């Protein structure tokens, strides 16, 4: 799937990933790829603007941590992010059920 198809869905996907466990950008991307079986073919850099956007909107928070001498920014979900994710999940389920009912 190309980035265009993903448009608007990247944010909830990132939220869902971060909700399980705080992680830095690279790890989030790896998890996204793993889960989707590599179906998402996005310019991988785009998750960073997305992460910054989520942080500006208060849906994730981030802080520096040092691992084996390397500084990395670790993202975790906020309370607002968790409830936004719940809403998006519900919406997606309804949507995909409806599509499935029609498309079979």
């Amino acid at each position: 799937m190309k980035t265009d198809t993903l448009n608007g869905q990247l944010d909830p996907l990132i939220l869902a990933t971060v909700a399980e466990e705080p992680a830095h950008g690279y790890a989030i991307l790896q998890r996204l790829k793993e889960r989707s079986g590599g179906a998402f073919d996005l310019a991988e850099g785009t998750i960073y603007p997305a992460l910054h956007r989520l942080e500006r909107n208060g849906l994730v928070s981030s802080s520096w941590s040092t691992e084996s001498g390397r500084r990395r920014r670790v993202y975790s979900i906020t309370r607002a992010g968790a409830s936004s994710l719940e809403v998006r999940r519900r919406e997606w389920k309804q949507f995909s059920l409806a599509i499935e009912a029609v498309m079979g």
Partner: protein
Amino acid sequence: MSWLDNLSGELRARGLPRRDRQRIVLELRDHIACEPGCEDRLGDPRELAISFADELATSEARGSAFVTFAALAVAAVVLIISLITLGRFARYPGYSNGISTLLFFPAILGMVVAPQVALVAGTLAAWRALRRRRVLNLPAEEIALIHRRARVALAAGFATMAGLELYVIDFSERLPAWWLGLAGGLAAVAGVGLFAASRTLARARAIVSGTRGRRGDIYDDLPALGRRWLRTRPWLLGALASVAVGLALGAFEAHAEHSVLEGIQRGMFEGLVAAIGFVVLGRAIGARPAPTPVESTALAAPLDRLVADSDRARAELVLRESYAGGRLTLDELDDRISAVHAARTAAQLRAALAHIAPPS
């Protein structure tokens, strides 16, 4: 040049604040270190910098509009407290009883004219930011409009506080010390707030957004004004607004001073000020309309693209302007507007606009 150097240069070229730049570069350096050679999959550094800058420019523009409005609200409270305490507990000194009328006239100009400008421009800036709060990427021109409104408002806010300080100086020998201290001190505090807001605004203005689209004007801000006879006659709007301001403030003055004559004087003065403001600043703050949409995205889109409500609204606007210009009869207008509302694809929308060149 490495991918990271490229990205860093592009971010700087787009005017991102240093803190944001450093953080982005550090995060991506960590990303590349996790898997050396993955740069190709990260995408074009230029594109990435653009998407960082566009979103940041939008949210910073909104933020600075709100900060500006807050700083102006403080200045407004300061002005009101100063004037009320002056009227109640001290006494208005005659205008010629100060140190010099050279101080008095600029002071009064700052305290009477500048607040009007600040109120209009500041409210328009904050209102646009509020109305568009959910938009991820505002068009660059719209961001520039918000910045311009905020700048005009801040300048007027400074002028107001400077006017109050001049007034304090002019009457420093006439008015009680407690009032001079109160008004002078409060105005200085408000000035610091305005300065902080102008710093925020300067940072926001440094960021370059590349999103295309129209900037919108007063008719977008206040849809109630969008009647056709008014929409095509911005000068009439300016004249009506000036008369309304003059009548309202004139009536207020006549009531407060129990003098019809003073009311008429004040009303004419304020109306004149509003008219001059409209002429001088109208276009800068988007109170006069922007040129009509040149490139309707729906018109340039592939034929089978599905159109959005915003496309239909733009198409309807083109039709209404054609009717106003005498190119369509009322019946044709009605038929075509129905077609626009029923259009699902760009092709159908274009058919509804057939034979009408979009105004350029």
